[in-house]
């Protein structure tokens, strides 16, 4: 399909706010889809756009270089005529006048505006949360600060046993820190996975020296001039030199909300990334949308979604057909063991374990109304690829066959679905 090109009246650039995974992918996607008009990519952080996943994984390893993995080399932006400006925030949007206002006071008109402002770490609000030694992990600066603090023997308290908390727990344990994870729920990763997977990773962490405290309601961080201990509601105190809060993320939607775009814990967008205001798109962590698979309203915080939505935005702007929707997927690596998930599990899905969690490599499938809805694969991707297809086709699965790891998942599908 030919790419729609800017007409004579379109002298304004496509303005992209935020040069994270999604914003950069929109710029790249516009060019690969043949858009020839100007592209202005605005980013609050000063340095070249970088990858976030390594911040809680490779970057924290002992001896790993401090350099971040850039999303694209400088030459790419130059070759593709992407006008990238760093260290500037977009402070306001005027949808009627189709302009944005920047922190340096300048104004820029836009042809289309793409909001890719991502999310930020939810901050800890208990007394003492502002003490030095307490931090979150979202940016490269956060990661470098954490890396410096993770010295052998350091007492590390991690609040929240989600992906980031657990990846940091693994990195800290590997560096010889004394690690305690404080979690309010009764198991790790309870929001994203089932009990068998939680229990497997708890054991794995414990074997590597990580301590867990479940049902822990953190009420304060105490210390005279920096964090010295974390206190929970039952009165217990956990000594800590480093306190990492990994308690989820909040979408950076304020800019959009103030401009009158509909937001509900995320900027509301349709399948093509269009917001409620004509000419304005949003993509990535900052959005909330309706799943094409199960109709659920969701906000996804993963690279796969950031890239897939970006491509749909680029397709819509250039008037081209988007790629087929992809099943969302996510990965995490803890103590060298990879957990890779396809689809979005719901808490009341039927849980079928394939294989023996004690043997490291296994997977767990999730059935909703008898149909495959999600899969977790641990330390092996055998079920991952077939599952993505079966989930997309909402395939009915025979639970007995699926429970046998020797039967390929595809063969567990009921013939008549």
């Amino acid at each position, binding site marked *: 399909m030919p790419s729609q090109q800017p007409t004579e009246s379109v002298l304004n650039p496509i303005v992209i706010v935020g040069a994270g995974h999604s914003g950069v992918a929109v710029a790249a996607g516009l060019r690969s889809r043949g858009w020839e008009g100007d592209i202005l990519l605005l980013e609050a952080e000063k340095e070249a756009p970088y990858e976030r996943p*390594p911040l809680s994984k490779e970057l924290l390893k002992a001896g790993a270089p401090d350099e971040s993995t850039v999303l694209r*080399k400088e*030459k790419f932006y130059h070759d593709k005529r992407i006008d990238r400006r760093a260290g500037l925030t977009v402070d306001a949007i005027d949808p009627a006048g189709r302009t944005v206002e920047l922190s340096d006071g300048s104004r820029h008109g836009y042809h289309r505006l793409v909001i890719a402002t991502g999310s930020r770490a939810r901050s800890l609000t208990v007394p003492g949360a502002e003490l030095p030694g307490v931090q979150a992990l979202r940016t490269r600066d956060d990661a470098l600060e954490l890396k410096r603090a993770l010295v052998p023997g350091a007492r590390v308290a991690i609040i929240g046993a989600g992906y980031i908390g657990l990846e940091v727990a693994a990195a800290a344990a590997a560096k010889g820190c004394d690690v305690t994870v404080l979690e309010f729920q009764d198991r790790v990763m309870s929001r994203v996975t089932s009990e068998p997977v939680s229990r497997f990773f708890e054991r794995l962490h414990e074997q590597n020296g990580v301590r867990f405290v479940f049902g822990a309601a953190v009420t304060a961080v105490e210390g005279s001039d920096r964090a010295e201990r974390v206190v929970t509601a039952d009165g217990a105190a956990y000594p800590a030199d480093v306190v990492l809060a990994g308690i989820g993320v909040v979408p950076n939607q304020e800019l959009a909300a103030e401009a009158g775009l509909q937001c509900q814990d995320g900027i509301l967008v349709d399948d093509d990334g269009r917001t409620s205001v004509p000419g304005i798109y949003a993509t990535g962590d900052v959005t909330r949308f309706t799943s094409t698979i199960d109709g659920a309203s969701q906000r996804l915080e993963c690279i796969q979604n950031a890239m897939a939505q970006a491509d749909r935005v680029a397709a819509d702007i250039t008037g081209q057909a988007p790629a087929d929707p992809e099943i969302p997927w996510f990965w995490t690596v803890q103590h060298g063991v*990879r957990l890779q998930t396809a689809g979005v599990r719901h808490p009341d899905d039927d849980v079928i374990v394939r294989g023996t969690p004690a043997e490291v490599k296994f997977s767990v499938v999730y059935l909703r109304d008898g149909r495959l809805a999600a899969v977790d694969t641990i*330390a*092996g*991707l055998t079920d991952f690829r077939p599952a993505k297809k079966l989930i997309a086709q909402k395939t009915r699965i025979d639970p007995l066959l699926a429970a046998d790891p020797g039967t390929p998942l595809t063969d567990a599908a009921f013939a008549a679905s």
Partner: protein
Amino acid sequence: MSNNKLTVIDREGSTHDLQWEPDQTLMEALRDNDLPVLASCGGTASCATCHVFLEKEVFDTLAERSEDELELLVDAEGYQECGSRLSCQLAFSQDLNGVTVTLAPEE
């Protein structure tokens, strides 16, 4: 400008001749030249969306695949024992100048 060349056969079977800058991994050379390589893990051997096939003669000259790389590849679509590589794990080298690579089917 370098004179390092690379020939790519895409998923439709069309051939593309590219420049391969010495500071790029093979994945970056593919992606930054607009070939459909998603590289969603950013080149950290975590996603297998940068899977390519090399000719056996070329494959044999390269260092062994790491455990991580192999783990992802064996379950990838169309895995070839003596041909599959994650392109993000291949840095440019003079030996690779002029090679032909084929994009593996999409996951």
